[in-house]
């Protein structure tokens, strides 16, 4: 069943839901950075204290990420082949633009994740987290790359959250508007919080000091 078109979309929806839950939790956690060094390092310390549970969560995330990106590539290739001869003129209504760019915003997220993990995960972990942020995001070229990637992620989930409900067949005229608006609000929230951090790191020299 999972190899059918709807099966593959179900894998996208469930893995996308898990990744979105992680991203939203990550966003909420990172708001501690706005309350100063103590609050942020304290929060990061609590996360690290989880120990074995943290390892399990990380393994789960990696699993869903690989499933999500792998099936995304498969769908992308299949969908390209479904129309071998393109239209000379094609008008699109515009509402589907974010949906149509999912493979590209997704690819941007993937590239970002590699850089992001190299910056903060596979690195010298003895420096306090607040110091790592100041070092990496204090550099304008990194800050710009983070801002660009976060905007891609915001677009990705602002469509993705509604899309996953539609894919799982959880749709009702009474709740559709709510789900759609909720997804866009999550996208805006993720965009705002994660853009503010690099922006503050660049323009405010006392950030997380």
């Amino acid at each position, binding site marked *: *069943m999972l190899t059918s*078109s709807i099966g593959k*979309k179900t894998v996208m929806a469930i893995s996308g839901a898990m990744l979105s839950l992680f991203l939203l939790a990550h966003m909420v956690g990172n708001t501690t950075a706005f309350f100063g060094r103590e609050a942020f390092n304290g929060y990061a310390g609590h996360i690290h204290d989880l120990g074995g549970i943290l390892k399990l969560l990380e393994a789960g995330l990696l699993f869903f990420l690989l499933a999500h990106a792998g099936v995304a590539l498969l*769908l992308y290739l299949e969908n390209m082949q479904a*129309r071998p001869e393109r239209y000379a*003129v094609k*008008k699109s*209504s515009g509402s589907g633009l974010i949906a*149509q760019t999912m493979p590209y915003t997704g690819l941007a997220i993937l590239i970002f994740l590699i850089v992001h993990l190299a910056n903060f995960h596979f690195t010298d972990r003895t420096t306090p987290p607040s110091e790592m942020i100041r070092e990496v995001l204090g550099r304008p070229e990194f800050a710009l790359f983070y801002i660009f990637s976060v905007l891609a992620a915001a677009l990705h989930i602002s469509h993705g959250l509604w899309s996953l409900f539609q894919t799982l067949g959880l749709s009702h005229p009474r709740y559709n508007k709510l789900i759609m608006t909720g997804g866009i609000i999550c996208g805006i929230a993720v965009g705002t919080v994660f853009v503010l951090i690099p922006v503050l790191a660049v323009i405010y020299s006392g950030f997380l000091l």
Partner: protein
Amino acid sequence: MSTITLTLKIWRQQDRKTKGRFETYETGPISQDMSFLEMLDVLNEQLTLEGKDPVAFDHDCREGICGMCGSVINGEAHGPEKETTLCQLHMRHFKDNDTLVIEPFRARAFPIIKDLAIDRTPLDRIIQAGGYISVNTGGAPDANAIPIAAERAEAALDAAACIGCGACVAACPNASAMLFVGAKITHLALLPQGLPERSGRPLDMVQEMDSQGFGNCSNIQECEQACPKGISIQNIARLNHEYLRAAFLSEE
């Protein structure tokens, strides 16, 4: 009666195998009271008199109910009017000296037979795979013998408005047939007559849809915009629901 003249760029293709190309034609005076297909008839008369090969295009009822007609006009399946088949599209929606690019519905699953005429049998194969109900032979049952709530009947009839023209496939960036299959599944799943096949139908129809070479749905919503019968993507959600229910929850 006002008339207009048009420049038409029409896709000409000899058969399935030959490579196609655009040919440009200048029309004579076209009455704005004509339908789009009548305009093509006039062009074909002109081409025949000039000893040229007329443009092949699909049509049958010419009253918006059979689902045979359909081309992409300036990038829009069935042309610029909402909820209108090509045969019901009138030339009053075009202006004098307009240039119209006319292409066939393009999808790997819809091979071009000639010019604008395409082979839509893959949609029929999906219907054959599961778009039916089982009934006993014998005398016709009384109307209203089976009670059906009015809202349910309305929703089923809204889905049944699908004429199977394939505009959803043509408009979808992935050439997916999910709106068509969604309409057919919804139509039968909502009515008591469709219940005996409820758990087999989505599995069989989706399997056939996949094997015919349509793309996957990415929830882009272009299909809904192009559908001449206003079929909603709510029907795709119901198809997903019915499919997952049949695949993972059915007891059969």
